[in-house]
């Protein structure tokens, strides 16, 4: 079948054809970008933390009226409270291990610094987040130690958190960036100008920062129990005993010292699964919203194609009858409308692909958005063509069923 008669016929329905082309183009532009946003969010939500997440619990609390300042007596007083808490938690039947740990991935409260090879901080510098905690922190978090050793109990200091520990454990990306030859273990580095030695390397540990960044996995473990008005512990429950461990912990902590605060929602005792759900709530929401909009868009556009093609078929009933009377087979009529739709959808998709890149460009200049991969647009184009073919099927069938006798009837 030649395309020429189809184009000639379309020329007589310029506006209607233009409307479908426009609708398909806009739908493609929006759907491609929305799918890209969904893809990005899913990718972000799938990022591993490096933790053994199941059974992990975090406790954050405040000692109201705790003294501030660097007075040694105050610090010792706070440290005694902390050690009592840790011992109490360690004694609970459903708790496997417990550690002091200032932060946890996905929480967004964090401190950072720069690790360098020289004391003058010139040259190679790696930005990283600091996790302060005791010798139980690495095993409790379930981090995979790939080289070196854990902190010894004797290496744990306590007091205000400063990144000046003589020994540190770093995540693999930090080690690799500082020592591309893979010999990071045992090397001397400087944290904000203060000397330290790498004694261990963990495979992966995400920073507490949720946003994407080029240092998302640059983490450093510091052997220091932070004594502050805010105290934070991590706890590993026996398998399947997470809820029990949480309620035991709450009861035990308030029994040992009731003068503590756990104001929800940001403090309290939370399973890591809750922390994860909360951290990605808006990402999940955005993905959900974009999915709903995509579904509505595709339905509306499909329905629009059905509606307009039906109108066309209705208008051309007589012409179809004439063609049938002149010897066209049913399949010819069906093909006619299918090819016509392919042309329209193809035109719409071509314009839509350009629009999709244009919209992405605009989003990139105004919002945090990265370049739209061609794959999304290619999938979008195929989806539009498939949608067009599916939508045209019903009216095209109806057209092919027009009997030749219609040609001889009036109206």
């Amino acid at each position, binding site marked *: 079948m030649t395309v020429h008669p189809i184009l000639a016929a379309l020329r007589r329905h310029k506006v209607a054809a233009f409307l479908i082309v426009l609708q398909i183009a806009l739908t493609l532009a929006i759907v491609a970008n929305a799918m890209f946003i969904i893809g990005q969010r899913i990718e972000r939500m799938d990022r591993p933390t490096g933790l053994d997440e199941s059974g992990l619990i975090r406790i954050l609390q405040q000692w109201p009226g705790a003294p501030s300042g660097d007075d040694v007596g105050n610090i010792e007083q706070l440290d005694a409270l902390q050690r009592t808490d840790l011992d109490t938690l360690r004694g609970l039947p459903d708790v496997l291990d417990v550690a002091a740990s200032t932060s946890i991935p996905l929480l967004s409260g964090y401190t950072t610094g720069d690790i360098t090879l020289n004391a003058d901080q010139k040259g190679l510098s790696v930005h990283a987040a600091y996790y302060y905690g005791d010798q139980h922190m690495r095993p409790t978090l379930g981090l995979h130690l790939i080289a070196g050793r854990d902190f010894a109990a004797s290496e744990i200091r306590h007091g205000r958190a400063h990144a000046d520990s003589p020994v540190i454990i770093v995540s693999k990306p930090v080690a690799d960036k500082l020592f591309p030859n893979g010999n990071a273990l045992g090397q001397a580095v400087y944290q904000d100008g203060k000397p330290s030695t790498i004694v261990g390397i963990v495979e992966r540990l995400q920073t507490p920062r949720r946003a994407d960044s080029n240092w998302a996995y640059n983490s450093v473990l510091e052997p220091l129990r932070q004594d502050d008005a805010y105290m934070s512990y991590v706890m590993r429950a026996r398998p399947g005993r997470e809820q029990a461990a949480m309620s035991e912990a709450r009861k035990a902590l308030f029994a040992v010292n009731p003068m503590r605060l756990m104001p929800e929602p940001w403090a309290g005792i939370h399973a890591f699964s809750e922390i994860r759900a909360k951290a990605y709530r808006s990402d999940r929401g955005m993905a959900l919203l974009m999915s709903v909009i995509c579904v509505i868009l595709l339905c*509306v556009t499909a329905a629009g194609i059905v509606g307009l093609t039906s109108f066309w078929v209705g208008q051309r009933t007589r012409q179809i009858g004439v063609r049938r009377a002149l010897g066209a087979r049913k399949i010819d009529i069906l093909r006619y409308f299918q090819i016509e739709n392919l042309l329209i959808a193809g035109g719409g998709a071509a314009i839509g692909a350009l629009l999709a890149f244009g919209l992405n460009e605009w989003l990139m200049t105004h919002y945090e958005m990265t370049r739209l991969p061609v794959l999304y647009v290619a999938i979008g184009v195929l989806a539009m063509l498939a949608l067009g073919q599916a939508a045209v099927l019903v009216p095209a069938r109806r057209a092919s069923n027009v009997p030749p006798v219609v040609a001889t009837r009036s109206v």
Partner: protein
Amino acid sequence: MFGYYLELAVRSLRRSPGLTALMILSIGFGVAASMTTYSVFRGLSGDPIPWKSSRLFVPQIDSWGSGERFHDEPPDALDYADAMALMRQHRAARQSAIYAISPSAMPTGTSRNRSPIMLDGYAVYSEFFPMLDVPFHYGHGWSADDDVNELPLAVISDKLNRQVFGDGSSVGKTIDIDNHDYRIVGVTRDWNPQPRFFDVEGGYYSIDGPDLFLSFRHSVAINMINAGWDGCRKGTSDPQGDFVGLQNSDCVWIAYMAELDDVAAVQRYRQYLDDYASDQQKAGRFRWAPNNRLRDVPAFLDYEHVVPSDTKVSLLVAQGLLIVCLVNTVGLLLAKFLRRSGEIAVRRALGASRTAIYAQFLTEAGVIGVGGGILGLLFTVMGVLSVDQVLPASYAVLARIDPSLLLLTLLLAMTATLLAGVYPTYRASRVQPAWQLKAP
């Protein structure tokens, strides 16, 4: 005549219920998606202090130098030295340095609370209250002299007043905050501007308003630590927890607000900031030329990207959906109207003017608009009620259903559908009676 057209429209729409339903659904979905995302956007992008925001300014001073900064702008907040210098020199009509505190209200023999209450508060200067028009239920703020004398005075919220003292005024009573006694001088009314534009984080959203205000100088004197954000120059370490260290560092952690009542005052203040920075340069503290900013509250919130970009992108995508729905409606109306060319021809031949055809078909579009509007209203209400499923709670509470939102929904649906109806109606009015009547 309108009644007749209405009857015609309803009759016509009933003839093709599928197509009619499709158009109404399309308008309904498009409008609801736009209005739901708009309600979130409206809630988050509102001006927290509309009557005064253009007279409130946030000074930013480049205390880090270009090589040390993370981007080209000066830091978002002030360090202690600059904030104190600006307060001392006192060049604006009103001004206050501000930092976040988070002490606890401790239980006492006479208080109603039996356990400590963690507070969300700020250390501020006396001019903070009149400058931001903080509403008082009882009492008032403190005086400039009280600032100087570092007196232990407190302004508390209505909510904290009820929690600790029950009903009635607590002005003149004493409250125990982190084991220090404070005399209450004022109780605010429910005050929770959104976003919290005077916070060092450059504005964020919070379900509850601040509970407590203490005097800045007193808070620093008793070492009440900064509970808000702090940012340090690249390559320097954060003093964390060491409050005196923080004051001596060039880390920024103090929010600052100045009231400047006219253009001349703004100009003078800009000049003053530049002079201040060049004095610092001369003194050797800054080794770079003055690079300051003075933005009013709306400009500062915009600069800080307070409204999450997701909100704006969602609104944009939803508007795109509405446009597609409208294009769809144009096509369907066109099909629907032109299918009735014969009917139009008969009406025209019997003497109906083009205007009459216009009126008839726009009425039909209007009926669809009303249908779409009602459906859109329903979906919008459902949408706004379910935003808490997809948004953090502090955002979700700001998306409200109010009469203006409902009215806007209906108006949008009507306008959009009538607009969509213009071209199909024009085509309908151009139908040539002779051609149609001649045709077999």
